[in-house]
């Protein structure tokens, strides 16, 4: 801006100048906060304030009606001795282990496949990207239909091929796999787009040079392109892991945590504790464990990638 410039060359007006400067900085302060104030109040009011409150709630026993009672770490002791919570942690870990590698590898593969000029490429890209707009509710209902053991398309195809027809979402050992597959259907677009953007940033000269040195496509990819993508890979692994351990919507709309609790995740546990059993304290404690887990995983991957010399963050 043009601070101080206009008032130069007016000797003897020091007092007035100082007052004008004060008035201007007050006006700038008001203008600035008029621009940023409304959005800031909403965003901070709906995040910083509740986040701080949840730390307090985690230390209280409260059902929303009677007065809250301070219980210290009792909520944490309770959830960690609750087999349902430990099961939820286990199911969340299973989903994460299934979903994260699948979504990162699928994204990488699809990006490489889509990163070329061939006929129909627009159709391929649209087909792979369009499930991204499907909501969890729609995806959940759709998966219960597609994977219905009797009437579902998947088992109809398997049956006509003479293959065994599993119970899928109604089978304790398969339900989480189906949820991971349907998540992949909706989310593959995301990692694909990220990798596509990153592939465009690989310098063409490097690839040319490798070719001239006699490297084949396979070698060029793993020796030249893949190392270039590593910051993006670190990022997508972190991002998808954070998404995975927060799984809730799709479970709620497909299995409601069943069969026999086999797909209860940590967030599902939070939902049940807080909003079904009205144990706000225990629910908040479980949410805090999830938050700590998120920070630990992020920190772990960042430290690991620093050690390996990948400048991702």
């Amino acid at each position, binding site marked *: 801006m043009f601070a101080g410039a206009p008032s130069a060359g007016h000797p003897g007006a020091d007092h007035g100048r100082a007052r004008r400067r004060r008035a201007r900085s007050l006006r700038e302060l008001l203008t600035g906060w008029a621009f940023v104030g*409304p959005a800031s109040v909403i965003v901070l009011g709906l995040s910083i304030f509740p986040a701080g409150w949840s730390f307090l709630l985690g230390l209280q026993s409260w059902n929303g009606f009677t007065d809250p009672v301070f219980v210290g770490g009792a909520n944490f002791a309770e959830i960690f001795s609750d087999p349902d919570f430990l099961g939820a942690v286990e199911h969340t870990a299973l989903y994460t282990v299934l979903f994260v590698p699948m979504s990162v590898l699928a994204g990488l593969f699809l990006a490489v496949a889509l990163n070329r000029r061939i006929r129909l490429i627009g159709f391929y890209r649209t087909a792979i990207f369009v499930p991204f*707009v499907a909501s969890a*509710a729609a995806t959940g209902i759709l998966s219960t*239909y597609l994977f219905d053991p009797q009437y579902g398309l998947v088992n109809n195809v398997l049956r006509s091929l003479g293959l065994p027809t599993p119970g899928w979402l109604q089978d304790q050992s398969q339900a989480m796999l189906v949820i991971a597959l349907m998540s992949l259907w909706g989310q593959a677009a995301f990692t694909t787009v990220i990798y596509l953007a990153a592939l465009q940033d690989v310098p063409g000269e490097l690839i040319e040079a490798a070719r001239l040195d006699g490297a084949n496509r396979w070698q060029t990819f793993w020796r030249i392109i893949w190392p270039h993508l590593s910051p993006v890979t670190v990022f997508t692994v972190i991002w998808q892991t954070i998404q995975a351990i927060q799984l809730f919507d799709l479970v709620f*709309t497909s299995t409601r945590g069943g069969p026999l609790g086999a797909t209860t995740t940590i967030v599902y546990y939070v939902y049940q504790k807080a909003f079904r059993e009205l144990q706000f304290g225990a629910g908040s404690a479980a*949410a805090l464990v999830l938050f700590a887990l998120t920070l630990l995983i992020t920190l772990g991957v960042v430290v690991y990638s620093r050690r390996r010399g990948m400048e991702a963050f």
Partner: protein
Amino acid sequence: MTSAGTRPAAAPHLGRATITVEGASTDRIATAPRRRRTRFSLWHLVLMPIALLFLIPFVQMFLAALSPAAELQRFPPPFVPSRIDFSGFVALFTQSDVLLWLLNTVIVSAAGIISHLVLCSLAGYGFARLRFAGRKVGILLIIATIMVPTQLLMVPTYILFANGFRIVNTLAAAIVPWLASAFGIFLMRQFFLSLPAELEEAGTIDGANRWQVFFRIVLPLAKPALATLAIFTLLGSWNDLVWPLIAINDSNAFTLQLGLSNFQGTRQTQWTLLMAGNVVATLPLILFFLAAQRHFVATMTFSGLRG
């Protein structure tokens, strides 16, 4: 996500994200650097089956929604119905309040988009260009909130909505969380930082004040970023389930997603009705996606590279 704004090392991501907002890198996605090939590419053999696999769930959804109900109860049900039948839609519209829920969702999304466009672009500009006390702390706090998972906020926000604002069981409970977002402010700030400051200085010299500069000079240039912001808000608010689920129990204030997820317990085997409901919830976004694919891809890229 992670350390944006706290370490300069995050800069490459931010830089790239800014380019994306201008629409440049989506164009680059569309045009791969490889030379055009005339012979048949073997990649078709890979891509065609994958593309069809990704489309099949939607195809199944549309076909089932248009099937006669009895055919889906047959064993095994045909993939392609013998005739097109709208009884699923008729049942949906007559036996449920789906039109009301659709209206509710439209209200939530429209309010969210308008509010996002106004408030986040104002705040983004303020944080990018104006100099005032508290600016740096403000933007740091806002970026930090991107790290706080929604799940941590569920319980206290519910209590706040129930006991503080007293908006539980009203549509307002679904609207308020979508009025503004840290992501939206951050996106607009990155965009305004990428604009050359000379444009605005010219306006200031001509005697326009900050508001006139913003509305007359800056905002018209921000259309690509505003499109990204609108799509981000549309996707999030239209498909949101968690907030309505915990805060709304009254079926008059249901959103479409909440109504759909509620069907599941009550109409488990009415497949035509369920799939018709899915079509109503999904088709608007699919059409939108087909019409503005480039902007959707830009939105995805930016939300991925925001950290």
